[in-house]
């Protein structure tokens, strides 16, 4: 009743180090752009606004509605946040929400937080804002309809990315995880779409000024429409393909070099007993030794600092 963990929050341990780090890099780069953009384009008013909006998303995730058989639908909020706050601010707000969920409730891990932010905060915001923005001049009905589709797609995109990451980490089998995750989230996404649409309808009715065309310039708008559209297409085409023909996807990944050809299963991305990336070579042993020395150096440094600090 207080707080229910959502199935998209990956805990630590379920993603390999490599996948976690790659996701962190992507997330950090995007957030860096988001930060420099918000710092530039938004006024000082924006700090309390984004902070309270983050709390709003957190609280809104607790609003549920009974569906059937004791289950209930509720909100993820990425698309909604981006639509009402703009994409960059929406991303920062979702990042704060996901960080607090991980730090305070262990809902989602720390090392895999990059992946969680990517799946639930960045991609959802891009889809939500991009698609909504593409119909900015249209009638209210069209806007709401598109917002609903965007909300549903944003959940599907999150689920798809999560599945792919789990598969690349060797935690799940592609042929099972994709249909399972997408199936469940097709339903969860409906709840997301319904709440997002009626929340937007409420805002359009009471404070339409807040949903004005926003602070983004027309040119930046085009970029978002493109980004949102591309990600959506990716989701729309990849999902059925991956569900129907997982082996095909694996072959594609092999051809693209994501998975080394000839490997029977992707979990060997981090082989045992050697350092990642290097293989069983003399080089590996040397690097391992170097790391050992570095660690000892760090420890000595810390002890030295401790002696100097004198509590």
């Amino acid at each position: 009743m207080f707080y229910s963990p959502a199935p998209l929050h990956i805990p630590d341990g379920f993603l390999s180090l490599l996948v976690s780090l790659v996701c962190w890099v992507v997330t950090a780069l995007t957030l860096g752009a988001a930060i420099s953009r918000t710092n530039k384009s938004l006024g000082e008013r924006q700090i309390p606004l984004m902070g309270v909006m983050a709390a709003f998303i957190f609280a809104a995730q607790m609003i549920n509605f009974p569906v059937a058989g004791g289950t209930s639908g509720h909100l993820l909020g990425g698309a909604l946040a981006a639509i009402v706050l703009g994409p960059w601010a929406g991303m920062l707000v979702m990042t704060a929400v996901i960080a607090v969920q991980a730090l305070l409730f262990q809902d989602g891990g720390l090392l895999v937080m990059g992946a969680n932010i990517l799946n639930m905060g960045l991609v959802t915001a891009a889809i939500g804002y991009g698609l909504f923005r593409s119909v900015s001049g249209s009638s209210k009905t069209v806007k709401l309809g598109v917002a609903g589709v965007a909300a549903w797609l944003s959940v599907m995109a999150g689920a798809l990315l999560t599945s792919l990451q789990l598969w690349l980490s060797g935690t799940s089998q592609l042929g099972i995880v994709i249909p399972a995750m997408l199936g469940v989230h097709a339903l969860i996404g409906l709840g997301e779409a319904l709440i997002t649409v009626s929340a937007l309808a409420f805002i359009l009715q009471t404070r339409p000024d807040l949903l004005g065309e926003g602070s983004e310039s027309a040119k930046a708008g085009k970029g978002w429409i493109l980004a949102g559209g591309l990600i959506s297409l990716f989701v729309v085409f990849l999902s059925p393909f991956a569900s129907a023909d997982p082996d095909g996807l694996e072959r594609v990944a092999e051809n693209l070099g994501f998975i080394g050809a000839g490997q029977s299963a992707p979990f060997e991305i981090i082989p045992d007993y050697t350092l990642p990336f290097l293989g069983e070579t003399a080089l590996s042993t040397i690097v391992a030794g170097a790391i050992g020395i570095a660690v000892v150096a760090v420890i000595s440094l810390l002890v030295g600092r401790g002696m100097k600090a004198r509590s």
Partner: protein
Amino acid sequence: MPVTHVTNQFAAPECGGDVLVVNDLRFSYPDGHSALNGVSLKLCEGDKVALVGPNGAGKSTLMLHLNGILNGQGDVEIAGMRLSRENLPVIRALVGLVFQNPDDQLFSPTVFEDVAFGPLHMGLPEAEVRSRVDAALEAVRMSAYRDRLSHHLSVGEKKRIAIATVLSMQPSLLVLDEPSAGLDPRARRTLINLLRDLPITMLVSTHDMKLVQELFPRTVVMDEGRVVADGLTSEILEDEPLLNAHGLEKP
């Protein structure tokens, strides 16, 4: 702080058909804080009763039990029906609960939608819903506000709409939690007149002793999760030691 518990010192007025019977109700919050320690209370058809007591006395907690939002040990009977899992929906239609902050009560964009929520959820046919909404808005003298946005009303107006949202369910018992908090004197006066005119049994919690004096023939005093006094308002408001012991003040 030591508090003397004066029970049944005042004779409660006699009555026949009970609208509400609470018997030895006990409740602890999940964190272990016991908020109700054996509350017993009876309300008759047409009674208008004030519920007073210091912060944390358990007034709101008691009110949340009256339509089963919280479930303690002990009996709650509404109009002769014992509150239980099966008849929860019926009881919720019989007990109209109005919370302190009207903003919590009004979650729809327009006044009409908000007042229609209860009847719609009860599964009533559309024509009936419409006539109930009209009657409820009429009762709080807000018919002209039917299509306004709840969000833009003043606190006093919101308060009256909040009362209409439960009147439209035609409850047998109206339960109001601190209805006059945050109102300016004029809005407060309007509210008092409204409550006086409503021909319905009501239990009203408040810190506003002047309101108690003006409106309610009977007063129940709670402290530390117990009923410490229950009787005629005129007598209770004269009992200085009782008032002082429970953090109250004469109006």
